């Protein structure tokens, strides 16, 4: 029986590994390097325990807890600092990696008809799913070992062997959990976009649940797999229980995915599809309407996600007041800065993160144009009476509206949650202007996507590299004390930090002019080049 169902799993696993070896290697190398360059940098920047203790003062508040999770602030060694600052964020990236790797060889291959061919060969019904699970699991075990021994090999005193291995195991475990989550959604959903969308939603909810509970009631964070990452207390008390939990959950999820796969037909999901419309609505019958229709689900999901993200950050403002109310030293330290209120001083820190995350959906919306080209669907549009300018323009306008809606909704979320938990309430205009001021930078990112599409269509994904750069330097900029120009290489580095800084007009104006320039260039490029897949 097992022979029939799992025949040739090993061979298929080797095949999948061959297909993905470069992709996997790049992810692993990137993550390991990203992890092991941090402790020496911290070691260099904060040479003494006194310096590290000084930084804990700015860390011990709810905004930071919401972002980084709890840390061992009383014994803030280089190790504890690395774990506190880095492990959660890295775990989120590992989660995204797991989702993307796992969706590729489950629903995506099924949707494109490749699994059909595999199934016609003498391979078992469950072989391909399990081959894919084997490859992904091996990848994350590799990640755990490389990261663990890599950290230990740095030879920094506070990075002991057990802590380092636990660090790696936590990341690997997170990967396994989200590989399991994705494997389950690959059975439930009928498309690869749905698979990725649902799994990412779980990741986002796990993060937000953790953020809220870490601030309000830490024991409730046990409900979120990302909460377990901080519960491991790496480089302090080294708890292995969270890793065991991760292993148990991932095994359960993988078994469930096998079960679901065995009771469904190839190509089907569990959400039954109903007959659709016989005629196209009036709205659909234009390039703009089509572009919107294709992204509608993603658009709505992101909009909800960003509102919730804003609201989660806003909901900690209440704890904020209690926290600082009890702590006179903070009050003195912070209030001296230009008479801004306590909450106002933390808004720029939160806003940069929100603005960066709100930039993801508009850039996806713009890159969808290239995605359609790759699937040879632009031909249908361009061989009718639609010019390239109009086509790209439709996607551009949609991306700009997307950016506006996303940043506005997250500001609205932040304000509505914040004002309801704070005694004195919050002024909407203040929050909104601190958010919308990032709009020109978001449009500039859309512009980069257009420019790449116009001139280097096979490399439109490079925009994400630039995005990650922006995220890295602005999110961690203060910690690493980078020189100013490092941040200014990103459009987000030029945005005045309202409300503690003045709304300077010049940088916004110059940024907008540059954005318009590259957008025009990109349109010209798109008008001049061949379509190619």
């Amino acid at each position: 029986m097992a022979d029939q169902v799992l025949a040739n799993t090993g061979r298929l696993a080797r095949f999948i590994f061959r297909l993905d070896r470069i992709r996997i290697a790049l992810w692993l190398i990137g993550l390991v390097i990203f992890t092991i360059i941090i402790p020496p940098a911290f070691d260099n920047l904060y040479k003494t325990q006194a310096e590290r203790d000084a930084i804990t003062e700015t860390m011990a508040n709810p905004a930071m807890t919401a972002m980084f999770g709890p840390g061992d602030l009383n014994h803030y060694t280089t190790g504890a600092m690395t774990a506190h600052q880095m492990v959660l964020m890295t775990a989120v990236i590992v989660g995204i990696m797991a989702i993307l790797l796992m969706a590729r060889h489950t629903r995506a291959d099924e949707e494109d008809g490749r699994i059909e061919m595999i199934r016609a060969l003498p391979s078992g019904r469950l072989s391909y799913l399990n081959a894919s699970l084997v490859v992904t699991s091996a990848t994350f075990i590799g990640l755990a070992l490389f990261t663990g021994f890599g950290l230990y090999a740095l030879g920094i005193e506070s990075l002991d062997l057990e802590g380092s291995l636990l660090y790696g195991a936590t990341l690997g475990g997170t990967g396994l959990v989200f590989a399991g989550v994705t494997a389950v959604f690959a059975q439930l959903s009928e498309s690869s976009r749905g698979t990725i969308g649902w799994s990412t939603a779980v990741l986002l909810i796990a993060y937000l649940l953790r953020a809220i509970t870490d601030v309000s009631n830490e024991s409730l964070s046990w409900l979120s797999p990302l909460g377990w990452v901080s519960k491991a207390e790496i480089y302090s008390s080294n708890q292995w229980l969270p890793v065991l939990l991760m292993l148990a959950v991932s095994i359960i999820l993988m078994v469930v995915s096998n079960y679901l796969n065995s009771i469904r037909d190839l190509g089907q999901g569990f959400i039954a599809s109903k007959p659709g419309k016989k005629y196209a609505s009036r709205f659909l019958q234009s390039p703009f309407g089509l572009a919107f229709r294709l992204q509608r689900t993603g658009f709505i999901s992101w909009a909800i996600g960003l509102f919730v993200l804003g609201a989660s950050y806003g909901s900690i403002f209440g704890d904020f007041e209690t926290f600082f109310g009890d702590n006179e030293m903070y009050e003195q330290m912070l209030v001296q800065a230009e008479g801004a209120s306590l909450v106002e001083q933390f808004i720029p820190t939160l806003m940069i993160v929100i603005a960066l995350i709100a930039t993801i959906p508009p850039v996806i919306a713009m890159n969808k144009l290239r995605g359609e080209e790759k699937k040879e669907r632009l031909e249908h549009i361009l061989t009718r009476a639609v010019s390239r300018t109009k086509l790209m323009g439709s996607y551009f306008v949609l991306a700009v509206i997307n950016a506006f809606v996303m940043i506005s909704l997250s500001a609205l979320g932040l304000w509505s949650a914040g004002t309801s938990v704070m005694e004195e309430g919050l002024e909407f205009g203040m929050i909104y202007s601190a958010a919308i001021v990032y709009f020109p930078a978001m449009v500039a990112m859309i512009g980069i996507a257009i420019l790449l599409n116009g001139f280097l269509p096979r490399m439109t994904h490079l925009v994400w590299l630039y995005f990650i750069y922006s995220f890295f330097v602005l999110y961690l900029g203060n910690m690493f004390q980078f020189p100013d120009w490092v941040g200014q290489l990103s459009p987000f580095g030029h945005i005045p930090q309202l409300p503690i800084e003045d709304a300077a007009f010049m940088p916004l104006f110059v940024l907008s002019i540059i954005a318009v320039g590259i957008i025009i260039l990109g349109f010209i490029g798109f008008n001049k080049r061949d379509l190619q897949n």
Partner: protein
Amino acid sequence: MSVLEVKHLTKTFGKFNALYDVNFDVKKGEVFGFIGPNGAGKSTTIRVLLGILKATEGQVKVFGKDAWDEAVDIHKHLAYVPGDVNLWPNLTGGEVIDLFVKLRGGNNNHKREELIKKFDLDPTKKCRTYSKGNRQKVALVAAFSSDADLYVLDEPTSGLDPLMERVFQECVMDVKSQGKSVLLSSHILSEVEKLCDRVGIIRQGQIIESGSLNEMRHLTRTHILVDTKQSITALEEFNGVHDIEETENGLTFQVDTEELDNVIKHVSQFGILKLESAPPTLEDLFMRHYEGNEKQGVTTNG
């Protein structure tokens, strides 16, 4: 009057020469067959004339307008069906048809319903559930329900069943009878033979033969089956006679069209009981050209 004119068209991808000095034209009211083996450059040519690819060199004019610069104007009067129809998995066939018709600027609901019925398509199903043939039907319905002057069809029937192929042929005849022009790239030779007034054969990026089927037949051989009272002698001494074979029903051979007269005169001396002749099929033409150099090598040697 030419609806489509391709002059000295060359297209290179990097160093690879996909098309080299391609010339042909499609006249108003005619169906032009575009045939050639896989990878010959048919789709590339069609993409250039649709303004999807930019010509490296040469001129492509549709309705007298430049295919690249005036693509939008051209496309208002042109309908296209690709060979590989990729659709949006979560739109229904009906939605896609409406979208396509609308994007061209036309609107012919009556025709739409009639064609959906003729092609036996369920427009309420999502494209994800369509087979290749059904996706092709979506593109065909969208194309033929729009009121175009030039129909560009790139292997449009490769996924259709014989019944649907017949419907397709009726659609082509129908537009032809209205004086519209069609460029039909196809692998199904019987279809090309039935529908096309003229054909162009392309191989390795070059047009190696073009003209009306009658003209082209002239260049090839007629199949003859003959039964005579006395057995035929000295037939093999004729220059243009090939593949002589003795069968139960008589002698079969092929004869070059320009030698036909002499050969028949010779054969008739032996008392004809039965004579059948078949015109060269497109397949003969096709095979002769496709097999290309190897075959030519053999004939010159032998």
